């Protein structure tokens, strides 16, 4: 177990290093630079700005400098287009918002998705199953930029207690969390239905039935543990993705989270911000995968 953990830890470190390196060179391969603006920047100003950020140096020098700042000083660098703002400040300010939204969405996804999947599996080929499957298919097929505005118009504009967008009142998390949660609930429903169907056909379930164990006990005690393994494997990366924010959701609902920075940083060629966000997101994914592995081991004794 310890060996496995150690091996996963070093694999994670290596993944992050490769991620940092690839991101560093790829963002610089894009056309343009952070100084590309609609109104041309005078040459002497451009020269001075590049010298300030070190972007006038050859790429290998920039890379070594970046790694040095990252490893020795834990410094992710500064934003180039926003004066005096550090990448770490952007993450510090926006991550708690994305985390709160991600937790709320994940709760919704779990509370809706898993029961729906389990019920669908237990009531296989019945109207209940078809209803659950249709809901799941709808959630998977409808993109968030369709569900979000629809919810905003139908719920936000009708109920005074719910705002169509913003992040200032206690109820503002509802619409974005429901939008994000429903999409993930759809995936979870399908995965848990599939997992449960596999398990319900196993011999030990048949044995339990033959011994006269009540249906709910079979599900809760014997089937759920194995049936949820595919869903648990999905939850790890999905959770990492949810808590690191969603550009679409944040833009539709005006949420000051981290997701919008991913897209805007790429459009603005904010080199250091892209690198910092990718590294942070990579870290979350690595950590979430590790946790998901541990959870799977806990659920499935054969993996131990």
């Amino acid at each position: 177990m310890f060996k496995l953990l150690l091996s996963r830890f070093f694999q994670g470190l290596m993944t992050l290093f490769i991620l940092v390196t690839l991101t560093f060179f790829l963002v610089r391969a894009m056309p343009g630079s952070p100084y590309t603006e609609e109104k041309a920047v005078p040459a002497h100003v451009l020269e001075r700005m590049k010298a300030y950020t070190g972007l006038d140096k050859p790429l290998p020098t920039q890379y070594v400098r970046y790694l040095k700042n990252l490893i020795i000083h834990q410094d992710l660098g500064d934003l180039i287009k926003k004066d005096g703002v550090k990448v770490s400040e952007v993450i510090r300010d926006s991550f708690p918002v994305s985390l709160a939204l991600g937790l709320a969405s994940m709760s919704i996804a779990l509370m809706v998705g898993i029961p729906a999947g389990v019920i669908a599996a237990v009531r296989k080929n019945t109207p209940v199953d078809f209803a659950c499957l249709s809901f799941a298919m709808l959630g998977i097929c409808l993109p968030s930029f369709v569900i979000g505005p629809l919810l905003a118009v139908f719920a936000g504009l009708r109920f005074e207690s719910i705002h169509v967008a913003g992040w200032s009142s206690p109820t503002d998390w509802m619409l974005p969390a429901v939008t994000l949660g429903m999409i993930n609930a759809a995936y979870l429903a399908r995965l848990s239905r599939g997992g449960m169907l596999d398990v319900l056909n196993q011999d030990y379930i048949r044995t339990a039935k033959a011994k006269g164990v009540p249906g709910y006990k079979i599900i809760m005690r014997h089937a759920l543990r194995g049936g949820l393994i595919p869903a648990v494997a999905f939850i790890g990366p999905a959770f990492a993705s949810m808590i690191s924010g969603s550009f679409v959701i944040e833009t539709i609902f005006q949420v000051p989270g981290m997701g919008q920075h991913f897209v805007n940083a790429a459009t603005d060629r904010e080199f250091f911000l892209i690198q910092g966000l990718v590294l942070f997101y990579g870290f979350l994914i690595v950590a979430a995968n590790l946790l998901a592995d541990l959870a799977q081991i806990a659920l499935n004794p054969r993996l131990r």
Partner: protein
Amino acid sequence: MFPAEMLRQLTVSALCVCLVACEKESQVDRATREGILIMGNANDPKSLDLQVVTGVLDSNVMRSLFEGLVQFHPSDDLATPAGSALEVTPDETCTVWTVKLRQDAKWSDGHEVTAEDYAFAYERILTPDLAAKYAEMLYFVKGAEAFNKGETKDFSTVGLNIIDKWTFTMTLRGPTPYFRELLKHYTWYPVPKHVVLKHGTIGQIGNPWSKPANHVGNGPFRIKSYRRTDHIEVERNPYYWNAQNVPLNGIRFLPINNPYTEARMFRDGQIHVTYTAPAEVVDMMKKNHPSVLRQEPYFGTDLFRFNTTRKPMDDIKVRRALSMTLDRQALCENVYRGYVPPYGLTPPTRGYQPPADVKFDIAEAKKLFAEAGFPDGKGFPRLKLLVSSREAAATIGAATQAMWREHLGVEIEIEHKEWTAYLVAMQSLDFDICSGGWIGDYIDPLTFLEMWSPGNGNNNTGWVSQPFADKLAESFQLTDPSERYAKLKQAEQILLAEAPMAPVAWRSKNYLIHPSVKGWNPLLLDCHPYTSVRLVPRKKD
């Protein structure tokens, strides 16, 4: 413990829902009652340091925190009411301007605003180390350009002279009768010398003086709270010289990037004024709520640039023919929704009328095309029209493609590029035809014409015309406004005749405004003086 805690959280949330549900007052109604204006502002400003910002949305925040020598008038584009200066007076040649500051003007920390602050601000923005992108706005001052470009390190060579604590003079590089108009731009506003130097040096990039906690301004408001990508809130500045006549208690700027979200928030009673209104929203509001929709002239022009260094765009006849077959009326009505079909490049103002040289004339265009060697479009190469991924550019591109196919028989390919890639292609002349636009910095035709002069970084067409440059240079020597306008008109005539670009539309500002907002009048630069804006609660039915 955990379920109990969760239950508590759920109860609190449910209570919040019930409480808010009981509350009938919308955010806008409450803000109106409290005297707080809520504005959509598209994005966060680049900084709270007014000497490093460059954009329109930056300017919206800056004008609440700082004040220049003259102010924007609430309803007259060309008027220049006094700001923190009592007088700004020229000599007879309009070259040396004397500024007398009001002695009751104060920074938001209570310090006096003096001539030294202005001199320091101008020295700072011109200091090469600061790398201020908009420093060139001050090149009107004698010696400013040389100092900014590092040709001299001696600031005394710049035409700025402090007479006493409240008086200074500026010697300009030539007669500039429209100088007061320039002074409205935020690059001419002061910065607090004592605060900037307390937190760093004069040329320090990222000087922390502009952090919200350290920030000091001389405008009607001061920073109250700032949360990136969420809001900036400013509150009444008690030290402002005219504080007793400022009707608003504060302004909340919301960086709403998505115009559709902004429109929904407006409908939901969350904002007073939107930054913009997309075409679909304009249509809907026109039909259902016309009283809250505003469509006002804006000092900007949408245009197509022709790459004159490539064949066949190097031929004036080809460029003119392409320009003449643009049905601008149809584009403005059906795609831009409310923009104005242009007859020149510079949008007309009270003082200046551009030459009427932009027209829709298919017969003439066909004739010119045939003369250029492409009768009925035969033999014309398949050119690319570069458009950005922003706004209506793609739709305009598609409409134009159809017009040129129909009227000239030519096939144009549309090339979409993401914003920065588009800018790189435009600035490196890697295009045949390119959609674009320009927004004036100040109300004067020069802001639209100077960019086409040889060597200007914003030309982006490869077009060079000595007669055009000569006309501009001649205009720099004139002090009489009507003579100067006449000269600039001649320059614009040359530009339109040679057509390195084709104006497509004069911009309008489409936005939504809540009925409680008063004193928000149409202004060409859309720079509303917040000191004249009032909020009047609606009468209850």
